[in-house]
C-alpha cells in the first residue's frame, strides 16, 4: 500500500475532539499532520470539503459480520468483530485471519472469545489471540453464567492489558425470552424477561472487574437501573465504559407491536422510561460508545414469527444519521457525537484513530449532516436489510470515506484482485 497519501482537506468544518471549526486538515503519509507543520514536497491531493463536515471515520465497536458495503455506506473505517462467528474467534489462527481480512481499506479488529467455543466454561487462549491481533476479550452474545469463570477471564485479561467486553443480561432470567416483561409483551403473548436481568448482570460484572482489576466495557446498557450502576461505578473511579446502539435510544417496546421481527433485538427493546434513561446517560457521559451492533440477517432468519426469528439488526448504515438525531435534538454536540462514534471506541481498542488529532491515522469521513434520505433495507447495500428503521426518513450521510488518507470506494478501490486479500501488510 504505497499509494500517495498526502492530502489537504479544505473548506470543510472540522469535527475536532473539543470543538467544531472551519479549517484545513493536512494528511501526510496517511497520518493527520500537526497544524502549522511544514509541508513536504511531493504530490498532494487537494480535497474540497466545502459545506461538509470533516470528521473521524466511525470505529464500530462490536459488529457480528464483516459487511464491507454496509460499513462503507455508514462511514465506518474500522469495526471490531464479535467472536460469535462460525466457527467462533476462539483460536489464534482465526483471529489472525480476521485481523488482516479487511485491509487495506477496512480494518477489522477481532475480539477474542473469552471462553472456548463461547460456551462459558473454559478460558480461551487469550494471550495467543492478543498476539494474533485481538484487540479485546469479549463474552459474545451470551452471558457467562459461572461467576468463577468470569472472574478468571477478567484476571487474565487484566494481566494482558485488554478490556473485557461483556453482554450484560442474566442468562437464566432471559432464557427463552424474546421481549422485556411489560404491557407490550403481555398484550402480544410473547415470552418475556424482566428488565432487571440487565442490572443484575451489570452489578456482577462490575464487582468482578473491581476484584480482578480489569477494564470492563459493557457493550449495551439499556435500562435505567443498569445505567445508574454504571454511573455510580464511574463516580467511584472504576475503569468501566458503557455502550449502546441507536435502537435503544430511538425505539421502545411499543415498536414490537405487530410482531415485527426486525424489532427483535438482544437485549430486547425496553420501556419508554428506559429509552429516556439511555438518552440521559448519553448526555451526561455515562454512556461512552454508540455502536451499530451490525448483525445482518436474511429472510430465513427474520421472516418468521417474532419469537422464532433470530435477534439482531443491520445497523451500520444507519448508525451515523440516527446518532445525528441526538445532535439535532440537542442531547449532545457534534464533537461529543464523534467521541461516542469514533474516539471512545478507538481508545477502548487501543488504536491511534478515531479523532482528528496530529499523529493519528487519517481515517476520515466527509459528512453532509443535513442530507435527507429514506432508510431502505433493500437499497442501502450490505448483506441484508433487516432494519427496524426501514422506510423512515433520516438526515446525514457519509459522502466519502478515507482510510489512511486514501479514499475508499464501496467495492474497495485500493484492493486489486481478491478483496479479502490478506497480503497488504501487518496489523
Amino acid at each position, binding site marked *: 500500500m504505497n499509494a500517495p497519501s498526502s492530502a489537504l482537506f479544505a473548506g470543510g468544518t472540522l469535527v475536532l475532539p473539543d470543538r467544531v471549526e472551519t479549517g484545513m486538515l493536512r494528511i501526510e503519509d496517511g497520518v493527520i499532520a500537526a497544524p502549522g507543520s511544514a509541508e513536504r514536497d511531493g504530490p498532494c491531493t487537494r480535497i474540497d470539503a466545502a459545506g461538509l463536515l470533516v470528521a473521524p471515520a466511525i470505529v464500530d465497536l462490536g459488529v457480528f459480520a464483516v459487511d464491507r458495503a454496509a460499513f462503507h455506506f455508514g462511514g465506518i473505517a474500522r469495526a471490531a468483530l464479535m467472536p460469535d462467528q462460525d466457527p467462533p474467534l476462539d483460536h489464534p489462527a482465526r483471529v489472525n485471519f480476521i485481523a488482516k481480512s479487511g485491509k487495506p481499506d477496512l480494518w477489522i479488529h477481532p475480539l477474542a472469545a473469552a471462553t472456548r467455543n463461547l460456551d462459558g466454561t473454559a478460558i480461551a487462549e487469550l494471550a495467543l489471540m492478543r498476539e494474533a491481533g485481538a484487540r479485546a476479550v469479549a463474552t459474545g452474545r451470551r452471558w457467562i453464567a459461572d461467576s468463577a469463570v468470569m472472574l478468571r477471564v477478567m484476571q487474565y485479561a487484566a494481566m494482558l492489558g485488554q478490556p473485557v467486553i461483556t453482554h450484560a443480561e442474566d442468562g437464566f432470567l432471559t432464557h427463552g425470552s424474546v421481549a422485556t416483561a411489560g*404491557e407490550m409483551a403481555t398484550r402480544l*403473548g410473547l*415470552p418475556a424477561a424482566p428488565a432487571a436481568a440487565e442490572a443484575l448482570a451489570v452489578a456482577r460484572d462490575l464487582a468482578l472487574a473491581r476484584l480482578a482489576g480489569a477494564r470492563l466495557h459493557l457493550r449495551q446498557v439499556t435500562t435505567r437501573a443498569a445505567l445508574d450502576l454504571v454511573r455510580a461505578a464511574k463516580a467511584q473511579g472504576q475503569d468501566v465504559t458503557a455502550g449502546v446502539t441507536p435502537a435503544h435510544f430511538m425505539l421502545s417496546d411499543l415498536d414490537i407491536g405487530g*410482531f415485527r421481527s426486525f424489532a427483535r433485538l438482544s437485549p430486547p427493546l425496553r420501556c419508554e422510561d428506559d429509552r429516556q434513561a439511555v438518552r440521559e446517560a448519553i448526555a451526561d457521559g455515562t454512556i461512552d460508545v454508540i455502536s451499530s451492533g451490525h448483525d445482518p440477517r436474511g429472510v430465513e432468519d427474520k421472516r*418468521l414469527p417474532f419469537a422464532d426469528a433470530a435477534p439482531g439488526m443491520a445497523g451500520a448504515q444507519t448508525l451515523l444519521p440516527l446518532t445525528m438525531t441526538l445532535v439535532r435534538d440537542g442531547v449532545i454536540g457534534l464533537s461529543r457525537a464523534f467521541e461516542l462514534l469514533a474516539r471512545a471506541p478507538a481508545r477502548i481498542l487501543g488504536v491511534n484513530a478515531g479523532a482528528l488529532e496530529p499523529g493519528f491515522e487519517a481515517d476520515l469521513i466527509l459528512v453532509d449532516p443535513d442530507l435527507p434520505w429514506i432508510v431502505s433495507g433493500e437499497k442501502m447495500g450490505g448483506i441484508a436489510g433487516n432494519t427496524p428503521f426501514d422506510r423512515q426518513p433520516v438526515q446525514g450521510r457519509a459522502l466519502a470515506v478515507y482510510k489512511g488518507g486514501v479514499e475508499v470506494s464501496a467495492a474497495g478501490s485500493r484492493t486489486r484482485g481478491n478483496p479479502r486479500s490478506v497480503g497488504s501488510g501487518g496489523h
Partner: protein
Amino acid sequence: MSTSDPAPANTGFPTGRRAFPHRDLLAIAQLERHEILYVLHEAERWLSFNRRAAKHNDVLAGLTVINAFFEASTRTLLSFEIAGKRLGADMINMHAAQSSVRKGETLIDTAMTLNAMRADAIVIRHGSSGAVALIADKVGCPVLNAGDGTHEHPTQALLDALTLRHALRRRGESGDDFTGMTVCICGDITHSRVARSNLLCLQALGATVRVCAPPTLMPAQIAAMGAEPFHDFDAALRGVDVVMMLRLQSERMNGALLPSAREFHHLYGLNRRRLDLAAPGALVMHPGPMNRGVEIDSDIADLAERSLVTRQVETGVAVRMACLEILTRTARGVGGWGDGSGTVAEASS
C-alpha cells in the same frame, strides 16, 4: 335466511361501513365492540340452525377451507371442521405432523403453498404468537386465527361470550352485553391465549374482569390490559358472576413454575366451597379439555345449570360457522360486502 342484512338494529353501527370490515379474524384486540356484537348476532341463528335434525346449508358450497394446524388440537379442529361442513364448504385438514413443515419448509413457504391452492379461507393454529398474522400477510384469502402461541384465540372468546349470553337469557337476565357483571379468569394467565382474548372480549362487552394466578403464571403489567390481578383465589371469587377456569398444561406442573399439581389444586382448584364464595348462582366455564381434580373438581364441572362447559362446545360450532360465513362474503359476492376495502362499495338493498 338472508346473509346480507348489514347489521342488527341495536348495536350502534357506524353507517357507511360494513358490519365487519376485516378480511381476517386475527385477534379480539382488532375488533370494535359493535363488531363483536355483530358476530354474536350472526352466530345466534346458526345456534338454532344446529339444533335442527337436518343441519346442512350450502351457503359456502364450492368454497375450499383449509384447516392448517401447526399445533396439536382436537376440539378446535373438529369444531371448525363441523362448522365448515355444515355450511357446505370443502374442508381440508392439514396437520403439521404430516406436513412438509417437519421437513424444514419455512412457515412463509407453507403459507404460499396453501395460497397457491386457492383456498377461500384458511384456519390456522400455530405455536408462536403472531404467526397467524404473519401468514395472513402473505396469503390472498381470509385467515382465521385458531390460536397463535400465547397471544390470542379469538373464536374461543366469541363462543364464550355467546355461551354466557344464552346462559343469562335462560335465567331471564336479558341483555346483549355483560355490563355490571364481574368475571374471574383463573389459571395459567401467562401462557393462555384464551385468557387474553376473553379479557379483551368480556371488557369490550362491559364486564369487569379479574384474573387470578400465582405470580409465576401471571404476566407483567396485566393491569394495563384492564384486569384486576389476584393471587388469592378466595378473594378473587368473592361476589363474581362467572368463574372461567383455564386448563393447566401438564408441562407447567414439573416444579419450574409450580411446585406440583396437587399444590395448585390446593390453592387454585375450583371446588364447592370456593364456588359458594361467588355470587349466588355463579356460572362456571372452562375452554377444555379439563384436568379434573387439578383446576376443577368433577362435581363442579358437571354441575347442571351452573357449569357451561358442554354448552361452550356447542356454541363453538355456531360461532365458527358465523365467522366462516362472514369472512367469505366478499369472495361470494354477497351484496354490500364490497371489494375488501372495508367500505360499502355498492348499495345493499
